[in-house]
């Protein structure tokens, strides 16, 4: 599964880690994140993330 980086603040979403603080279990792919999910570091929406491989 690919990692995605927030183009606004640089936070990297790693599917292996997930975002447990916000109820996202490890192993959740970026595509599977709900549309309401926002960058846990700066708060911008999902569409501002780019794949970093």
């Amino acid at each position: 599964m690919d990692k995605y980086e927030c183009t606004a603040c640089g936070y990297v979403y790693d599917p292996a880690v997930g975002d447990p603080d916000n109820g996202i279990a490890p192993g959740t792919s970026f595509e599977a994140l709900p549309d309401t999910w926002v960058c846990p570091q700066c708060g911008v929406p999902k569409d501002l993330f780019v794949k970093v491989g």
Partner: protein
Amino acid sequence: MNVLIIGNGLAGTLAAKSLRELDPDLGIEVLGEERHPYYPRPNLIEYVAGRLPLEKIFAFPEEWAARQGITLRLGEKVARILPAEKKVETAAGAVLSYDALLIATGARAALPPVPGVDKKGVFVLRTLDDAHDLIAYLEGHRRVAVLGGGLLGLEIARAIRGRGADVEVIEFFDRLLPRQLDPAAAAILRAQFEKTGISVRLRATTKEILGDSGGVRGLRFESGETLGTEAVVIAAGIKPEIGLAADAGLQIGRGVLVDDRMKTSGPGIFAAGDAAEHRGRIYGIIPAAFEQARVAAANMLGQDKPYGGTVPFNTLKVAGLYLTSAGEIDAEGPGFESLVHSDPAAGLYKKIVLQDGRLAGAIWMGTKKGAAEISRLVALKRDVGTIKQALLEDDFDFTEIP
């Protein structure tokens, strides 16, 4: 139609991206004073700390702009805007026409009016070149003073400490993060910092940066005390870049004044990001710059999209600790009541402030559990009189509150 954007920071770049998404045929040209393509500014901290390699700083692959049909003119400073002719003149003498112009010039680091700020060894951290300069200087200079105990100052201190330098944070107020924390929470944060080897000096007003032709040698404070240091990093807030707008005769305040469509007083001229002042506010935060850029892009293309302000995302991570701060955090007096649950050794501090039984504010430090929920309850000014004690417990179930 041709759109010109001055500034290739977050607002300028994300506006260009939005414009392209809205109109595949639009001519889009971005003028960036920095010679580097866009990078998220928080990455500078990671870079200085040595946690992020240079090539990973940038948000988009090198060929991104070209592939998007966006003309990037990097390292090109704008000399002036000619609103009557709808043209922009660069410092190199090029004249560019526009149908719509976006001022996304951002902000620069504010410098305190202290003698010696121009000395060798005094730095700010705003651009990638600033970061390069600072890192190079730290190679031979290991004692660093950071002026400013706000969010940026603390992050910089931690990054520099991560490189092995001796760091002291100098704060004018009686506590760190005076905007976000009350004295008790700030004391816990300070202890966490000191554990990592960073010194903290409070209630200190710097009167002079001492030194000679070789560079910085120390600081002299109002109290008469001095501190020996080889480098100084200033983190004393931002100052919007409004010079071009002012020279062009646009209405300015502390920033470039915009209406709810992000339009300035000039024809076809918009502004967004740290340079823009909307309803008296200059946000200086990422989500605001991003929302303003999107709204500006839509309106530049003739849509009618309003901007109603941005609610700051109030959970941050500072020095590895989660911190949520909402509403009145340190109110005293009749009608106010404060309850605290704290575990200093663990860096944990939770506080709620009630006004006549209703939630008026909260601090949640060292944990994110319940942070989003408590902010929401503060925003709603919920009556929590009967459950106020339970709210602070680690296992409190917020779903019990309708």
